[in-house]
């Protein structure tokens, strides 16, 4: 399956590509560098960009670990397919689910209502209604009356 991944020797033995210690240390230092960057960026306020930058840096670090520490670059291509395939499916899971939950209760976002005034159609689900901040002692605040008209089957705070 993967004989090309094990150099040119084809005697049925295991002949791994042995990387120099220097390479491992260089990758480690790279990982530390990106950790410092991610912490530094965490203290800068970039708004929504913060999340994007954090994910991009984490992905660079993850790629370094997978490609060099886990030897995926010298490994059978099929193993890479298994790994990348699972990432792809995790992505489908994340994107489709968030596309759904992110738009719950938003039938007419332009007017900020969950009910189409013309038809009375109701958009269920979505985050719980915003309420007053909880007291530090931690009792759930009474949900304040939302500034939109809600039908009787409006979602309760959960």
């Amino acid at each position: 399956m993967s004989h090309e991944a094990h150099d040119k020797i084809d005697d049925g033995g295991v002949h791994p590509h042995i990387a120099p210690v220097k390479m491992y240390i260089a990758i480690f230092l790279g990982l530390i560098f990106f950790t410092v960057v991610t912490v530094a960026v965490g203290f800068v306020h970039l708004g929504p960009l913060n999340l994007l930058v954090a994910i991009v840096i984490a992905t660079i670090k993850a790629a370094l670990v997978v490609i060099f520490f886990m030897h995926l670059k010298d490994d059978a291509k099929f193993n890479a397919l298994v790994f990348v395939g699972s990432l792809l499916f995790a992505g489908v899971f994340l994107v489709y689910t968030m596309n759904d939950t992110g738009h719950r209760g938003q039938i007419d976002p332009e007017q900020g209502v969950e009910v189409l005034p013309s038809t009375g159609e109701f958009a269920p689900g979505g985050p719980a209604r915003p309420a007053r901040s909880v007291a530090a002692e931690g009792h759930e605040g009474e949900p304040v009356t939302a500034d939109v008209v809600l039908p009787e089957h409006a979602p309760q705070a959960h």
Partner: protein
Amino acid sequence: MDTANSHEHGAGHDDDHGESHGHGDHPKFLAHHFDTPLQQFDTAKLGMWLFLAQELLFFAGLFVAYGIYRNWYPDAFSWSSHQLDPIMGAINTVVLLFSSLTAALAVRSSQLGQKSKTSMWLVLTIICAFIFLVVKYFEYEHKFESGLLPGGHFHPHHLHVVRAMHGAAAAGIPDHSGTFFGIYFMMTGVHGLHVLIGIGVMIWILIRNNRGEFSAQYFTPVELVALYWHLVDLIWIYLFPLLYLID
């Protein structure tokens, strides 16, 4: 050489791979349903990658939960994230990254058949794993004392709570902050369980290495436990910024 193995195999085997060596030199580590050490090695590794793919999809559920609730309750996530100690998180990140380096070097040493060096790197990796759990223990203890607990158990105490310096979260404790801590404890808890299991497996591999079971021809178990350990590191690489460093 294991002659017993070759006898079992003897009569019916078809030598279609045309190797120069017969089953006479079937090494001890080679299970008799494999033709060659390479075939056995590749099979074991494919199995491990399939397991790691399963692990990723298992954690994906937690990451999706994180995504949904962060999207719904950004203020709660921002406020709650400030209750975590990024210094502790950063120390644990460095500890895990270093343990990944030592795990990779353990594999390298076992590839070269250097038994005592392999043991040394494995021991270092195990020590790092313990340090990680100790730091995690102190973090959890602080959260328990502060009442920063999941869902309905969320009852933060004024004195222990870190005030947010800016943004909407500065106003007070946002609703649904307990949800964040539910996700925090679940994600870090399941990850910590993986660290604990990793320690157990690495001790087992360390014992087997000390018994002299591995060589430059057969280091599969060392390689596989390192792959597992790198995945544990990989998950943490995402957990750290997502939990500790929310603006």
